[in-house]
């Protein structure tokens, strides 16, 4: 059982700083997801915790012990890779047992631990197979199993689901979450998929361009984004951004109003904040996404109940939302 602490963690490649000082404390047993677009430095951050990348400045602590110069194997961590990194010439059993063999765990215990992990992951019938004889989902499970058998203090996941198809991804997401609850192991998980982040995380770190924009529980981040980037990245379809000037008052130049699609209603008569014309509508069954343009040419998306009538293309509607759902951001993207 362990805590992980990142203190002003920085990473540079040559003269280019790619991570600009991340601070974070992960509680024992917590599931923390790092989410951000590709190239934001999230994998690099994880690899620094793993010890696969050197730390340029700052400190990585596991259980309050600085780990900057500790080899990965001595950090008491296990990692699941995006490509799974299974040893192709070893059987499933040998893949899972490899780290235990290296640390000279007695044979009987190795067998017991692998058997238990295989049972949990429903891999028991496949223990003698080679990785190439397994399906994508099964390989993913072997990678998980390899991490589990070590009973590490910390699990590290580097986009473990991104090589699976959509359906399997949802299923494995659930399994990972259940497994982590059962084992209660502190976990750090990297993904570019905000849905994965929202569903898995106890707390999440939203990263962009090497900066942790916001750290918090998923719903808190959703309800109360600190920056325009977070507001736009978390939530689907993404937040609409409108020039604040068109709603009267005299905001600072560049100020933007963010409003989530699910908070906007189409009105026909009655109170409205804005007029807009329907460009097209996507009826998805349970809900309908309506894409409109405002008089100043901005695009805006409205998400409404699928039971409501689908608006006609070209028709004009009033848009209404409650003031409490309005989020204002400065020109620099900071929440006002």
């Amino acid at each position: 059982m362990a805590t992980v602490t990142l203190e002003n963690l920085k990473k540079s490649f040559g003269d280019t700083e790619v991570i600009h000082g991340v601070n974070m404390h992960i509680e024992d047993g917590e599931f923390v997801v790092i989410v951000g677009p590709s190239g934001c430095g999230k994998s690099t951050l994880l690899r620094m915790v793993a010890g696969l990348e050197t730390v340029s400045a700052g400190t990585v602590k596991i259980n309050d012990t600085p780990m900057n110069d500790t080899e990965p194997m001595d950090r008491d961590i296990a990692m699941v890779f995006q490509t799974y990194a299974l040893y192709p010439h070893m059987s499933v059993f040998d893949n899972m047992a490899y780290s235990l063999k290296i640390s000279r765990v007695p044979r009987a215990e190795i067998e017991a631990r692998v058997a238990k992990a295989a049972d949990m992951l429903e891999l028991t019938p496949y223990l003698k197979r080679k990785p190439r004889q397994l399906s994508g989902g099964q390989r993913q499970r072997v990678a998980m199993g390899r991490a589990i058998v070590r009973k590490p203090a910390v699990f590290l996941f580097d986009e473990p689901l991104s090589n699976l198809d959509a359906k399997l991804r949802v299923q494995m997401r659930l399994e990972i979450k259940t497994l982590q609850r059962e084992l209660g192991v502190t976990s750090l998980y990297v993904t570019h998929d905000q849905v994965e982040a929202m569903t898995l995380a106890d707390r999440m770190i939203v990263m962009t361009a090497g900066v942790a924009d916001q750290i918090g529980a998923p719903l808190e981040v959703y309800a109360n984004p600190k920056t325009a980037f977070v507001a736009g990245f978390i939530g689907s379809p993404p937040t609409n951004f409108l020039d604040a000037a068109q709603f009267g008052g005299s905001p600072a130049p560049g100020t933007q109003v963010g409003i989530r699609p699910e908070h906007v209603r189409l009105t026909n008569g009655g109170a409205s904040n804005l007029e807009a014309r329907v460009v097209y509508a996507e009826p998805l069954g349970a809900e309908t996404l309506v894409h409109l343009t405002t008089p100043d040419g901005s695009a805006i998306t409205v998400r409404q109940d699928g039971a409501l009538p689908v608006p006609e293309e070209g028709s004009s509607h009033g848009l209404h939302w409650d003031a409490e759902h309005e989020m204002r951001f400065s020109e620099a993207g900071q929440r006002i």
Partner: protein
Amino acid sequence: MVEKRGAGLWLTHVGMIIGVAFIFFPIWLAFVASTVEQQAIVRPPMPLLPGDKLVENYTRALTSGVNAPVATMLFNSAIMATGIAVGKIIISLLSAFAIVYFRFPGRQIFFWLIFVTLMLPVEVRIVPTYEVAANFGMLNSYSGLILPLIASATATFLFRQFFMTVPSELAEAARVDGARPMRFFFDILLPMSRTNIAALFVILFIFGWNQYLWPLLITTDPSMNTIVMGIKQMFPSGDDTADWPVIMATSLLAMIPPVIVVISMQRLFVRGLVDSEK
């Protein structure tokens, strides 16, 4: 495929058969010559079908030969070819591992030092290399036959190429699993290179077996001759008539081991050849 039918197909087969015959004819003649008496050869034309002296001629070659028993030369060739193949593979695996998986001072320089040797065969630097071997007292020794021919970069180059295609994550996973570098090398990298090693072994074995100039210089004692260079030594100087049946039997014995290796490992060999020259 734009398939050929009828006459075209037959012409194609005829063309191939002529090609195969051109390849086979010299070997067939050698085989026939190794099964007849000297008399049958020195009075041309020699027969084109095998005679009945096969066992006799081969026994004579293997046990007594001309200067040294061919059995001894076969043994020397086997040691040399195996030594060269194994030696090259070992030093190449190690150095390719160092170059691909480590960053250490001088890495670039070492890299180039090895790779400039890529295409320079021993024939080019023959005289000074001979002097070096002589100074080390390596004349008429197996180490003299083997070591100088190990200095080549082809195998290193091949292993480097292969290691580059092994995903980095495997090494990282092994590192997280607690494997130190040499453990990773033996447990993961080596087993994954099995087919490459086997293919390279075939090519290097043949390379070693077929060496001519180097053994010619380095071995003056007939008991250290390799079979490929020993054949030439069997020709008498001057006008004496050569002992053709024994010489031809020796020629066939000289080609049998590498041919067996090539045929039995055809698939590996073809792959290895095409890979190593890419």
